[in-house]
């Protein structure tokens, strides 16, 4: 009986350790912080991995902006005083344009950047 209890406890500890090992071995999900201000994104080249979820965290240094990546059908508003988060996993490799899609003044048309997605 004692042996059985020890066996069960030991098995549970092993399972727990295995789970912990899985958690510890998984790389933390990447987070990229991006500042938007008229009329630039900083940084404006974001390197991502295909199939790897990433969270983009946006702040605005001045006015309401938008981030849109039409090739991945994702977008978010960027509101001054708030952190806007956008989580997605790019599903294709290449260079893709992202842009501000909320008109913010003379220079809005040039407010864009590149998602550089690697395998």
């Amino acid at each position, binding site marked *: 009986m004692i042996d059985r209890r020890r066996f069960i406890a030991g098995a549970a500890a092993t399972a727990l350790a295995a789970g912990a090992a899985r958690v510890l071995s998984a790389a933390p999900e990447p987070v990229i912080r991006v500042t938007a201000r008229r009329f630039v994104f900083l940084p404006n080249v974001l390197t991502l991995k295909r199939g790897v979820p990433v969270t983009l965290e946006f702040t605005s240094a001045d006015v309401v902006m*938008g981030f*849109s990546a039409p*090739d991945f059908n994702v977008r978010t508003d960027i509101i001054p005083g708030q952190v806007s988060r956008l989580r997605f996993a790019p599903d294709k490799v290449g260079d893709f344009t992202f842009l501000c899609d909320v*008109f*913010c*003044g*003379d220079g809005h*048309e*040039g407010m864009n950047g590149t998602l550089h997605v690697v395998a």
Partner: protein
Amino acid sequence: MSASIDRRDFLKLAGLGGAVFASGLARGAERYAAAAQNEFFFVQLSDSHWGFEGSVINPDARGTLPKAVAAVNALAAPPDFIVFTGDLTHTTDDPAERRRRLGEFRDIVRGLKVRDVHFMPGEHDASLDHGAAFGEFFGATHYAFDHKGVHFIVLDNVSDPAARIGEEQLAWLEADLARQARDARIVVFTHRPLFPLYPQWDWATRDGDRALALLMPYRDVTVFYGHIHQENHTRTAHIEHHSAHSLIFPLPAPGSQPRREPVRWDPAHPYRGLGWREVEAEAQPPAYAISEFPVKA
């Protein structure tokens, strides 16, 4: 042969117009003749960006719009009306300067001999103040009117800086359309493309698909718009979309280069890529003959 065909052939033969784009369906001669009395034409001008400065882009930025006004005034026959499809002025952060530009633009186009002129804003006119200054000078940003059997609808997809038509205006559109027969001739004027022409360059309307869904049950719908500073002809289902040249600078073809930057002025070909158009509304069923006119020195 109708008078309108004669006139279009004359334009082609005389070299007065650019490419003539026939939009619509062929029809029997008898129906054509029966409805010919309702034929007319209007002029579309777009994207004058009054207040823009940049000598390498357009060293005649203050002269191009007046040249177009003079050219329209010089037409042998006046159009029934004229429509400006937005970006009358170039954007500015300064509300007083915005009003000064709108006022100067208004004073220039007051020189048009044709008095029936319809305006709508572009994002440069309206997005930074939700259409407030535009409204002071030109009134409503969305409205409808009828002319010789055609129902014209002006949609505002720019007063919201996020390029949305919005719930209120979509409800207005739905109610307006509900009063139209399914075979009514409908023309939509707007600034941005209602379909996602090239969203990577912000050439789209966020909720344009909802406007198009409302228009879909109507068999005869044509959209004329601006924003992209070049001619483009696209069909979504049975709805045709025709963009116009600008009166300040051309932009590159959608996605043809990495960045959406104005095409530089070519001293060897001044005013190249700038222009305006006539649209001839022919007899039912739908047909619009589009004649493009370059700006000339």
